[in-house]
């Protein structure tokens, strides 16, 4: 149990009048165990080279998204001159020029912001949907659980890319806000709508496991409300697995955005996106392979950063995997 949870349990007890507020509940063993989970995890992380590579790459791309002009070496991605079309990389222009004669380094660098924004926004969407549905299903059980589980099965059976592809394709003709404007928001919504199921199952199973534990029974016996038990006692226990899932999923969704954009239903020009760059470079693969190569490499490194971080976190937070 975290400090916060322990504090909460005490408050529940005090409110319910079952304790004086002076007598400290003897829950120190559990508290130690939770504390040691996180401090052990940090000890484990520090020794894991994957974690450091992931952290370095993640930080690098985060900075790139925040301060693109620094990384673009001052070049403006939209200041183009057809005279430079498809020029190969040089000392002055590290990634050469694209077909329109725009500085390619600047374009690739500015793509980081879009990718990270979509990755983080859609993971937030995934988490909101997943935690909400999962917590409700797991906590209430019975019919609500069966119904929500079936709905989850339905979404689970649809491949992420396919579902998002259809939604984004019909999006513009719906006239709905955000969804119809083919921007970052639309892509994030589509990815969230078809990507929340794993988070839901994760949260649901955690909730069911914790729900039957002694200290939740104790909190309930002391009259804590359902909502309070759910938000204060149960959900914090799901933090570790959800954190691992979320980190990896940022990477997966960044890749998914590039794929959707490549397939023509994601971001549209004049947005700057790695998916767009790969897509327009595709036809020039023979003459100017660098146009596909550079955004591909940067995209892969970004995805890799999150997957490595997530992997390292999982190894650190799951004591069963320790040797």
């Amino acid at each position, binding site marked *: 149990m975290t400090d916060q949870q322990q504090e909460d349990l005490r408050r529940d007890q005090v409110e319910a009048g079952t304790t004086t507020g002076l007598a400290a509940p003897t829950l120190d063993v559990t508290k130690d165990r939770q504390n040691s989970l996180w401090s052990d995890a940090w000890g484990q992380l520090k020794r894991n080279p*994957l974690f450091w590579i992931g952290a370095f790459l993640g930080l690098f791309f985060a900075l790139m998204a925040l301060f693109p002009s620094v990384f673009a070496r001052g070049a403006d991605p939209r200041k183009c001159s057809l005279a430079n079309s498809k020029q190969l990389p040089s000392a002055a222009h590290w990634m050469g020029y694209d077909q329109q004669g725009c500085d390619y380094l600047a374009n690739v660098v500015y793509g980081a912001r879009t990718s990270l924004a979509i990755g983080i926004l859609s993971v937030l969407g995934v988490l909101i949907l997943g935690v909400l549905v999962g917590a409700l299903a797991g906590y209430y059980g019975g019919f609500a659980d069966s119904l929500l589980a*079936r*709905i989850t*099965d*339905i*979404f689970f*059976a*649809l*491949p992420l*890319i*396919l579902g998002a*592809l*259809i*939604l984004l*394709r*019909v999006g*513009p*003709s*719906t*006239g*709905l806000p955000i969804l119809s404007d083919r921007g970052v928001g639309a892509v994030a919504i589509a990815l969230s709508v078809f990507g929340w199921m794993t988070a839901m199952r994760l949260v649901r199973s955690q909730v069911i496991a914790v729900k039957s534990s002694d200290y939740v029974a104790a909190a309930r016996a002391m009259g804590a409300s359902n909502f309070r038990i759910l938000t204060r006692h149960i959900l914090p226990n799901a933090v570790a697995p959800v954190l691992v899932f979320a980190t990896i999923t940022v*990477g997966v969704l960044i*890749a998914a955005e*590039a*794929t959707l954009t*490549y*397939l*023509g*239903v994601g971001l549209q020009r004049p947005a700057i996106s790695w*998916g767009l760059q*790969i897509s327009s470079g*595709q036809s020039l*693969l*023979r003459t100017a*392979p660098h146009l*596909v*190569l550079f955004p*591909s490499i940067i*995209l*892969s490194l970004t*995805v*890799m950063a999150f*997957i*490595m971080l997530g*992997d390292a976190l999982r190894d650190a937070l799951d004591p069963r*995997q320790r*040797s």
Partner: protein
Amino acid sequence: MGRYVARRLLLTIPVLIGASFLIFAMVYALPGDPIRALAGDRPLAPAVVAQLRAQFNLDDPLVIQYGKYVAGLTHLDLGTDFHQRPVLEIITDRLPVTVKLTVVAVLLEASIGLVAGVFAGIRRNGYFDNLVLVSTTLIISIPILVLAFVSQYVLGLKFGWFPIAGIQQGWYSYLLPGLVLASGSLAYVARLTRTSIAENMNADYVRTAKAKGLPRRTIIVRHTLRNSLIPVITFIGADVGALLGGAIVTEAVFNIPGIGRAVFDAVRGQEGAVVVGIVTLMVFFFIFFNLIVDVLYAVLDPRIRYD
């Protein structure tokens, strides 16, 4: 077991209906007009529009539309595309291509993934184990889109070892796309096998097997591998279902005329009937192979009994 399978089959029906309805609703019911979308910028004669609307039941309420669609399904009528071509015909035309691609992918995934995982798991933390760990991290991290382009460029264009696109060279043309399609699962199989074996090597019953004086080979093959492969085999089984529906990018990049390509084209052309038909089929595959896996699980692990 028979009862269990029957019950599970019944339970798949609501999921199948739900998924197809979801797609159906997205394609037909969201505000917007597929007929206008079809026409693009060209103005259509009102009479033509009316006729098309009637043919695709677009003036009925959504539930009625869907009811008519399901009624058609029961006698294998999946509707037609805007050019009057039956959707069923499109599927029977394209499905064999995707099945071939899936077969190649699963074979690669199972053989390479298993072998790598077994050797990594048996000598955990050894040189080969670390190699597998690093390379699977790389493979998992590279988006399939990038992998497709890079392999197409390097192995197809530069080295000329594989055809760049299309299926003119028979099974050989499926090798590279199959590998690209399988890459993620392949890495996952290798990792799963590795972890599973490493876990089982420390299991009490393996210690017992050693205490019984069994030869090393018997201990590894009979008492470690047999138990370790249960989760791997079930993963591969479920993956067949996922691969059958997940080949959109691979089929697009390598220009392979399978159902992934077909559904992509249909989405772009807003061919509602085609999209709903193919996606429903994909969902069916997914559910069906998951069911097979559950049955397989009970066969492989006697502790699991469905009664």
